[in-house]
């Protein structure tokens, strides 16, 4: 359980770094972002492989979550890429490391993702599990209801992995 929390924390810190690197002076630093994406991948693997059934989400979005879990430990390069990956492939400065390890994405998460990023990551760290559930449906109400800086200790954590995967790809 501790590993999961630690991994979760590291994942959110890493995503924050990737996000901030977009606006840093001097452009995106390939080396640093590659290292961050490697940390992200390690943390994610630990997170997904750590058996902790209470965190798995059962529900309408459960299929996505379960698929994510099943594919997690394997972590191979994604055969089915999200549509967002294709335009970015031509971009020179994309850290490919983490993206290569992602599973299938749900396109429905992308709209979420934009609003999450737009609210400066406050949407990713969510306090109430209830708020998280709506977010999985693809609506944008979640981030507004979220409180920044809260570390989520309950259910919606696993579900958040997929939007984060898309986040890396989008970046």
């Amino acid at each position: 359980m501790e590993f999961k929390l630690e991994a979760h924390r590291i994942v959110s810190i890493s995503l924050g770094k990737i996000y901030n690197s977009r606006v840093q002076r001097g452009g995106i630093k390939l080396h640093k972002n590659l290292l961050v994406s490697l940390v992200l991948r390690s943390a994610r693997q630990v997170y997904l492989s750590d058996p902790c059934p209470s965190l798995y989400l059962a529900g309408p979005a459960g299929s996505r979550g379960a698929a994510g879990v099943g594919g997690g430990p394997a972590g191979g390069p994604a055969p089915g890429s999200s549509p967002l990956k294709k335009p970015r492939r031509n971009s020179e400065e994309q850290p490919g490391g983490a993206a290569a390890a992602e599973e299938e994405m749900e396109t429905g998460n992308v709209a979420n993702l934009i609003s999450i990023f737009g609210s400066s990551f406050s949407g990713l760290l969510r306090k109430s599990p209830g708020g998280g559930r709506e977010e999985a449906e693809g609506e944008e109400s979640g981030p507004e209801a979220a409180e920044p800086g809260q570390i989520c200790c309950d259910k919606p954590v696993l579900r958040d992995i997929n939007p984060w995967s898309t986040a890396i790809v989008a970046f």
Partner: protein
Amino acid sequence: MEQSYVVAEKFWPLLRVLFLAQEASIKLRKHFFPFSPLWGFEPQASPLDSIKGPHTSTQGLGPWCSPTGSPAPLSCETGCGEGSWILVCRLLVPTQVSLLSMEEDIDTRKINNSFLRDHSYATEADIISTVEFNHTGELLATGDKGGRVVIFQREQESKNQVHRRGEYNVYSTFQSHEPEFDYLKSLEIEEKINKIRWLPQQNAAYFLLSTNDKTVKLWKVSERDKRPEGYNLKDEEGRLRDPATITTLRVPVLRPMDLMVEATPRRVFANAHTYHINSISVNSDYETYMSADDLRINLWNFEITNQSFNIVDIKPANMEELTEVITAAEFHPHHCNSFVYSSSKGTIRLCDMRASALCDRHSKFFEEPEDPSNRSFFSEIISSISDVKFSHSGRYIMTRDYLTVKVWDLNMENRPIETYQVHDYLRSKLCSLYENDCIFDKFECVWNGSDSVIMTGSYNNFFRMFDRNTKRDVTLEASRENSKPRAILKPRKVCVGGKRRKDEISVDSLDFSKKILHTAWHPSENIIAVAATNNLYIFQDKVN
């Protein structure tokens, strides 16, 4: 495809504001920069050219170098254990005008004053980003984040002030790189000087290469002590006289003038790197040099600026398969066909340019198997090599990763022959260091002239020296509070848990904002230059 439009649409207002802000900030910086690079054919005297004459001003030295004590005989053989290190001088690079210090009247900020002014704050542009002695050790060049290069020259030995030898004064200052904006990629290119490398001296002038993220420049630094005088084609104000009034032709005569040091850019090697340049290295043939970025290494000829040869390319066809980047590269000191480059995975490759035009296949591959007991989330980051240096003999290479310095024998690829722990007490703090970005700090490492001692920096303004022969090591501190001129540096110790003895410092008290990333060792003497933020400390070995 719709998804990308959605992203663009949502982000465009924000991005547009960012671009405009970036452009505006570049314009403002240019406007307030008090000096400009020395272009063109006529030597324009810039206020920054140090004027030296018979009464040499001790700019930048202040009270720290008042001579006390007897002169120290310098020897290369003492290593770091027998002798002790004394502070020679602390030099403040001249403060740059920046947006942060706008409250002061620009006109009253004289550059000369700033040499002696003791700032309690440092603008980010003053942070030293590279330090390098030239091949004789007479000159010491520093580059900073503001794109400036400051060259210090060693005080000449004089009969009445024998103990002043070893001190360095400002010799020349010039703006090497300016911030640029790549409109095509909407990226600002930082003017920070990443590396400076000297060329060996072949005539009266000095030549050095300086590079930022994208462009390498060759600078010529020369002295001028004569001026042509006696033109009669112009009047006193410099206006051309009416040719009808000129009845005689006077040949100008060279008259001595106050010594002036001028720097001119002789070559600009641009547009060859898509990624950020991290290293440059002059070849031992003195005709070529290489520049390395994250994924490619290019070979240049000094005379040709519009072409370079790509000799290493590790960019994968699909960027998503990227697993490692190049972090440093250096030519062999004697064999002009060999070079090494290090990677973010902790490996070093030795390449031979005679084998093929594109050196993607290495001749030797140096990698140490990972210790599985030390595995953590951050294992990859701390194994990334931040610097690689050949020994002067050419027999060994030294690599620096986050926690250790390793010495490798070129003849043994499967493991290093020596490993030195720089600050192993940080191993348990990697998560915090990841959060505050310190884990990405790129420390450099240097050999001494005889390859017997190696030195590297750490946090809290500490730097470490390891004697390869005696296996002794020492931790020293470069700080204002603890260093009086000619004072002997006291070895420092970091206490790792348990009871803290007097004079020890605990790991939690370390100041991680004070990091020593750049150091340099004189090529033949025991004189070292240590860059601590905006301060340059020069220490020399004093044998008791």
